[in-house]
């Protein structure tokens, strides 16, 4: 098991945002690092990120189904990064709220993939949605909707 270490964030507010680099950093340590989150792909306003199945992240020992906590973190990180993917710049923000619908249990031993999208950014808020699946995006395990607040409202 990788024991993640505390870290300092090396990206300045307003810096150009490169998803693969920032994801490698964000998910290389801290809680994302502990869970083994990793960057998969991105487009103009979306990003994909993976969460490998691991025995110590299980919520139901009898079935081997992952706990929902790691899926919250996966969708929190992915939706959070989708905001910077859309804007192209890094703007520090915090999660205001996040809602998850657990459509079905994730299949044991499969990597869970999140696809997250930012559909609107305002001066102070960013609106996001996403889904998580374990192989087939048409058969999701979870749906998410959330709002992030900019720590310092900008233009």
């Amino acid at each position, binding site marked *: 098991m990788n024991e993640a270490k505390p870290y300092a964030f090396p990206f300045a507010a307003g810096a150009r945002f490169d998803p693969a680099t920032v994801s490698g950093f964000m998910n290389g340590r801290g809680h994302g690092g*502990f869970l083994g989150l990793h960057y998969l792909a991105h487009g103009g306003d979306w990003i994909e990120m993976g969460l490998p199945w691991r025995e110590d992240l299980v919520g139901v020992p009898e079935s081997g189904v992952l706990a929902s906590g790691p899926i919250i973190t996966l969708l929190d990180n992915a939706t959070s990064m989708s905001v910077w993917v859309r804007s192209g710049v890094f703007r520090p923000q915090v999660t205001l709220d*996040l809602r998850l619908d657990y459509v079905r249990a994730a299949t044991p031993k499969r990597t869970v993939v999140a696809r997250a999208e930012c559909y609107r950014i305002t001066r102070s808020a960013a609106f996001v949605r996403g889904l998580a699946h374990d192989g087939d995006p048409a058969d999701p395990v979870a749906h998410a909707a959330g709002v992030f607040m900019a720590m310092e409202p900008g233009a």
Partner: protein
Amino acid sequence: MSVAALPPYALSLGMTVERLENGVPLIALEFDGKVEGRPGFLHGGAIGGLLEMAAIAALRAELLARNTQPQIKPVNVTVEYLRGGTRQRTFALGKVTRAGRRIANLSAEAWQDDPAKPIATAWMNVLLA
């Protein structure tokens, strides 16, 4: 299953049952690198996981008291983040708003040094089968 049993995910994150409050497990989470989000702060996902654990623990306690042990399947959760969680222990306590035959409506609150200043709250609906 005992009222104080936690699943592997909770144990690997460092959650423990601090004590029972009126029969409801009070869950504690240690701060360390494993649960850190932005530098110096607890990750929102870890807070969400802690709140869910507290809500389910409260439900399990209630079901045990009723002498039933149905399977608990989460339907959805909404987490509201109120304050940043800093480098210290976090506590969470769940509440059963209503537990019917098929559905239970739960909530949970998390705080650090002052229970009157929650860092996050959650609402959760689960299916009982």
